[in-house]
């Protein structure tokens, strides 16, 4: 053990933020060519530790060793020089640049003084062939689906010849198919001697790919183990510090009146192409309709149209029996709609506002949060304190800006806000993306409760497990169309997978499962 040089080692890392001890004497080792999974609740300090390794944060105490040598990493520049690459939890790509431009940024090939974009393009092609990561070098990044954007992030690290690769929740935004592809890539990298730190909240993935597993809780390392020694349940318990129920338990649905009815809806995407192509669906009181589908098949646009964030080209969205006279979000919200958006940073929060204000974004203008033209600070604070406690948002204070919360805690703020109003229709797009198992358990429980209290729930998720465990009925979306609607208990994972990949419903499903 002692002769082996470690690719990376950190000793006694301490990092404090105002009011939080984000890393509390953390020790962590990474062997050459291993995949080391890093697990932990939301706000446990995983991203903070990685940012320290990558030179974005400066530790208050502690040491970092690379190949047995003590190093100081003051900036990402140093980290890159030392062969560390990082794919960030929230992507770090310039949206208006092409793939090739993003790849070379900061390490540009030149001919004389001139940027050698041809060489950049060739580098993309070479790397993507070498690792089987297919991307078009000339595509503009903002037009690419997240899965492809992530490939670009990985290529960026490989282009800089990373020997240590940090992947911060890379699978949170991927479809099961894409996760498989990512694992293939990770195994390839391993063979080439790259050491990988892999952060995720999905225990199945950890058991599938990791060589070793380290669990963090509240800034500390709780322990290190290997997949052969533990089960999912053990890991969940280690992370959260208590037993976690991984299975959702719920009574059969008792559907009532139709709350949301979508008729022949057509919606365009940014480029003016049809994204939602003649979709009709109904969601009733007291039921959860799950929309399954590979990302980029129109789910985003469908949700945005229903929630009033996007123009409808044709068709109708009927809420509570009558067509909304006005499709603006405030009208819809006041009529009982709650929305958990897909992109929490873009559509869910005002990042620079304190948590307390984020928690009243939909209700600030009404009593008790407003007194005439003034804000009622007391009520706003009281509301924030209650929700932060109830939803276990890990934050130093209710006045902390949403920006400095960990990804999962940002998500909890949104869920807390949306669930704190009387809800007739809940539209939830990836509601548990980036959440730890404990929080997922809690939010799933709340969604089922909401259903049992008579709310209609439209749940969009790329997570098949989530759909299968929560939904009463499942609609599969493929290329902008609903290709099948089935009862959740009459369909298997495999069948759903086929439907999502575009196999015709007649071939996949038994006759009786297809509703007339």
């Amino acid at each position, binding site marked *: 053990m002692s002769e082996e040089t470690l690719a990376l080692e950190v000793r006694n890392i301490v990092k404090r933020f105002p009011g939080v001890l984000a890393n509390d004497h953390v020790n962590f080792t990474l062997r050459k060519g291993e995949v080391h999974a890093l697990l932990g609740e939301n706000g446990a300090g995983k991203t903070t530790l990685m940012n320290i390794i990558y030179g974005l944060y400066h530790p208050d105490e502690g040491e970092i060793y690379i190949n047995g040598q003590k190093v100081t990493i003051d900036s990402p520049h140093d980290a890159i020089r030392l062969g560390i690459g990082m794919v960030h939890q929230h992507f770090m790509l*310039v949206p*208006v640049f092409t793939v090739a431009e993003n790849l070379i940024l900061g390490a540009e090939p030149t001919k004389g003084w001139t940027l050698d974009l041809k060489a950049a393009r060739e580098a993309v092609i070479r790397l993507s062939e070498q690792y089987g990561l297919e991307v078009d070098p000339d595509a503009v990044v903002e037009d690419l689906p997240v899965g492809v954007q992530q490939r670009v992030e990985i290529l960026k690290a490989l282009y800089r010849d990373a020997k240590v690769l940090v992947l911060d929740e890379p699978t949170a935004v991927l479809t099961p198919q894409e996760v498989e592809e990512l694992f293939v890539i990770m195994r390839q990298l391993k063979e080439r001697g790259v050491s990988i730190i892999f952060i995720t909240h999905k225990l199945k993935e950890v058991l599938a790919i990791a060589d070793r597993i380290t669990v963090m809780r509240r800034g500390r390392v709780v322990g290190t183990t290997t997949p052969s020694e533990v089960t999912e349940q053990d890991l969940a318990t280690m992370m959260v510090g208590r037993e976690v129920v991984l299975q959702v338990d719920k009574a059969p649905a008792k559907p009532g009146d139709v709350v949301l009815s979508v008729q022949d809806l057509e919606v365009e995407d940014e480029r003016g192409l049809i994204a939602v192509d003649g979709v009709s669906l109904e969601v009733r009181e007291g039921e959860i309709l799950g929309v399954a589908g590979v990302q980029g098949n129109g789910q985003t646009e469908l949700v945005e149209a229903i929630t009033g964030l996007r123009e409808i080209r044709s068709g109708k969205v009927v809420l509570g029996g009558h067509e909304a006279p006005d499709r603006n979000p405030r009208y819809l919200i006041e009529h009982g709609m709650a929305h958990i958006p897909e992109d929490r940073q873009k559509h869910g929060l005002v990042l620079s506002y304190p948590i307390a204000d984020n928690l009243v974004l939909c209700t600030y203008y009404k009593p008790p949060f407003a007194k005439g033209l003034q804000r009622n600070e007391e009520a706003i604070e009281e509301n924030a304190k209650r929700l932060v406690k109830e939803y276990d948002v890990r934050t130093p204070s209710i006045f902390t800006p949403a920006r400095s919360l960990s990804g999962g805690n940002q998500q909890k703020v949104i869920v807390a806000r949306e669930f704190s109003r009387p809800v007739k229709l809940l539209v939830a797009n990836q509601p548990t993306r980036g959440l730890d198992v404990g929080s997922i358990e809690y939010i799933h429980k709340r969604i089922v409760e909401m259903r049992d209290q008579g709310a209609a729930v439209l749940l969009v998720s790329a997570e098949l497990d989530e759909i299968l465990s929560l939904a009463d009925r499942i609609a599969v979306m493929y290329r902008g169309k609903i290709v099948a609607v089935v009862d959740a208990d009459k369909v298997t994972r495999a069948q759903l997978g086929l439907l999502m990949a575009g196999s015709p419903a007649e071939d996949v499903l038994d006759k009786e499962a297809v509703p007339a």
Partner: protein
Amino acid sequence: MSTPASFANWKLFWKRWGIGLSIAAVVLAVIFYFYARSPRVTEAVLASTLRQSVPLVLGALCGLLGERAAVINIGIEGQMLMAAYVGFMVNVRTGNLLFAVLMGVLTGAVLGALLAFMSVTLKIDQIIGGTVINILAIGLTGYFYQVGLSAQGKLNPIPLGPLAKIPLIGPVLFDNPPITYASIVLVFVVHYVLFHTPWGLRTRAVGEHPRAADTLGINVYLVRYVNVIVGGALAGLAGAYLSLEAVGSFERNMTNGRGFVALAVMIFGKWTPFGAWGAALLFGFATAMQTQLQFAGKLHIPHQFIGMLPYLLTIVVLAGFVGRARPPAADGIPYEKEG
């Protein structure tokens, strides 16, 4: 549903070049028509167009260098004015025109550094930072201004050999004083730097997504400093143009709002050097026409209305024909490192 390929190509071609081509065609037609009718007046109008555009182009290049790196510079007016003054005074004292121009450029650069310090290091609101510079320039130049000083010469046109003899084109393009030539060259230089060098790529990245640039080891603060300082130098050159090339003396508030028009020109030019150049020429042309109309004096329109011409024409053409552009995403936002 699908359009035939050739048709689609045409559409694409038209979308990219259509506006430029149609404007160019109209402009050329008009120029030839008038040249045929009265060559002397046409020549004068075109030459004046180019000269009017010089401070605007330089100012716009200053603005766009800053904004491409996400620093809004509304202090261009002040940078020009101060540079015009310093350049003039140096010329009065030393009689050396080249040295005077250099000092003007340096003045602009120093004020650029001041703006960068305020907005990048101190993270003061950038509009306030720019306003400080404007007020400073108006105050200082007004206070130290002395009546009756006269410059020792001014920058004269340098005809470029036989090129200057070509009818129409010669006198307009190839018989100009040095800063005018320089401004044209600089349009190409800035375009090259911004879109064809590593520095330009980094600048644009810093303006769009500074954190992403930071994670790639790019020094966001350095990029912003350098761009704002170089921009300041260009604004300084514009100031030197006014006092040492166009007029040959200094007057109170002689920039007369050109620094702000330059910002409009930058926006109409969609934050690109060539776009800005086109917009500046258009504005220069309208100004030249206005002067011409007032000289002609045959029109019975109050001169105030004629004076509006440049602004009206600019608004109509640019609002009508040039689509909306997207400013750099991080424009105006100070960058904070975390941890």
